[in-house]
């Protein structure tokens, strides 16, 4: 954790050698990413400059720590990480120094000190199958979430596990995992899905919250529309190849080398809503499709159960050949039965044939 105990965000940035010019650039970029009008840039800058450190409690349930890794593992300090650093992260398993009773005491202290004002960030899903599946200090995830959410101003479900249940919820969902929104229904919950999510999305949401004191506009999955409003497919630089019907068939064929569309290799871009194609990862270095791998659709609900990662989107989830094979077997059996019935009807009709003669051509009434 950075050694920052007092001052505004502006102070923090200046102390870390960020120029005014760099800061405004960041504000402009953030504003445009969040689809705010240019006139909002000064407002955003002023708000961020004077923002006080909000208290943040970060709960980790059934998760892999990938979300935390994604947010913290930048090799050079970025504005995103600095903003992240600026918050008062009062509780976070992986990052906090305190442990055991002291850690839990810190959480309780923060909850009391900022009651009704702190932000709750959750990563990981909550097991409902058996409370013992995942506990912290002997307390079930469900209980901690309910307790902690009660005094939060808003909840951010960080990553696809918290947002939609994610991998733990994958069929057959052995722990009975659910998403934060399935538990917290009386608080604003904002889903920042992705496995992991893009760091700038978090800072964007934070910036919005710090500036306006409200959450940004959300889509039907409670995700910030600014980042999840368009599909990967619609913003993909390989889209022209899709439109022309030029596809890579394997990961090392000519098409792959020429950067053709990865649809056939299982890219789920058409159904996936996220900002990867525009924001990219690792300070805009690259993103999955650019590095030659199709989108897994990680920001969509149930992406683990959405068919093989390397199967084209048009391929059904189940084993269609197997279904068809069983159906053929059943069809032959039922067909034979239907054939038997028809033959019987026909044979019976032939048996009942009564010879027509010229004596009985006229209708008998």
């Amino acid at each position, binding site marked *: 954790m950075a050694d920052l105990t007092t001052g505004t965000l502006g102070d923090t940035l200046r102390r870390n050698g960020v120029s005014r010019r760099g800061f405004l650039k960041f504000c402009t970029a953030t504003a445009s990413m969040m689809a705010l009008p240019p006139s909002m840039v000064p407002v955003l800058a002023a708000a961020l400059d004077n923002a006080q450190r909000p208290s943040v409690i970060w709960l980790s349930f059934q998760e892999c720590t990938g979300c935390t890794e994604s947010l913290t593992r930048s090799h050079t300090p970025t504005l995103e990480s600095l903003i992240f650093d600026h918050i008062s992260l009062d509780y976070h398993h992986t990052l906090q120094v305190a442990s055991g009773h002291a850690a839990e005491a810190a959480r309780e202290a923060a909850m009391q000190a900022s009651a009704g004002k702190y932000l709750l960030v959750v990563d990981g899903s909550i097991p409902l199958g058996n409370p013992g599946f995942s506990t912290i200090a002997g307390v079930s995830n469900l209980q901690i979430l309910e307790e902690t959410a009660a005094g939060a101003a808003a909840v951010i479900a960080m990553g696809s596990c918290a947002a939609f249940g994610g991998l733990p919820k994958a069929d057959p969902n052995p722990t009975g995992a659910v998403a934060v929104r399935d538990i917290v229904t009386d608080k604003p919950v904002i889903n920042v899905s992705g496995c992991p999510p893009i760091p700038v999305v978090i800072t964007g949401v934070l910036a919005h919250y710090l500036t306006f004191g409200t959450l940004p506009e959300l889509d039907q999955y409670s995700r910030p529309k600014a980042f999840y409003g368009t*599909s990967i497919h619609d913003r993909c630089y390989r889209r022209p190849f899709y439109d022309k019907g030029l596809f890579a068939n394997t990961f090392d064929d000519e098409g792959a080398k020429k950067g053709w569309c990865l*649809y056939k290799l299982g890219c789920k871009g058409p159904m996936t809503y996220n900002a990867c194609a525009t924001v990219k990862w690792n300070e805009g270095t690259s993103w999955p499709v650019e590095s030659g791998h199709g989108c897994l659709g990680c920001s969509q609900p149930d992406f683990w159960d959405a068919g093989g990662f390397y199967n084209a989107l048009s391929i059904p*989830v*189940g084993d*269609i050949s197997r279904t068809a094979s069983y159906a053929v077997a059943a*069809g032959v059996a*039922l067909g034979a039965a*239907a054939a038997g019935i028809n033959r019987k009807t*026909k044979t019976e009709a032939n048996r009942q044939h009564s010879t027509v003669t010229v004596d009985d051509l006229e209708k008998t009434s």
Partner: protein
Amino acid sequence: MNESMDFLLWTRGTAFDVAVAIFVVGILIRLFEIISLGRAANLAAPKGSEFLPGMKTILTRTLPEGGTFKRQPLTILAGYLFHIGLLVSLLLFIPHIELFRETFGFGWPGLPNPIVDAAAVLGIVGLLAALWNRLTNPVMKLLSDKEDYLVWVLTFLPLLTGYLAYHRMINPYPLAMGLHILSIELLLVLFPFTKLMHTFTLFLARWYNGAMSGRRGVES
């Protein structure tokens, strides 16, 4: 809360399996029902063979006889238009080919998307023309029953939803694709029990016709 994705996964999962199973079982039942009725042995000395003329008729009936075309150009043009549009969209769109490859273990080359897109538009236009024809042509109007209109709808929906999904005109996309898949599942489920069966039985029908004529030394 996950409506559209859940819907998409359901259409791509359980629903698709069920639809394919009903389709396959239904088709087999229908074919068995037909073939089990048999054909009486033909004892008259043949003037020609049955097999090849039958096969030939399977091909030749794809083209209309000249006089018929002159008398019913709309029926024939609309028929060609929507059949070709439908078949190109179904069989030469790369995402569809991937589905066939997965199902049958082999695929075939597809066409660039804009060409398939154009074919789909022609297919839609053809179907609309066919419907108009069915509603206005006195012969078709008299012949048509509810089932004829039902199969029109069943054929039209996949083309329409496919077009809308491809052009991303329904949002979010999972909903669009789910609707498209659902429309196909509807088609698959009702296929074996409606006139859509002609897709398969016309090969039998044409063959029988050609074979029976061939036997008499006539080209049909």
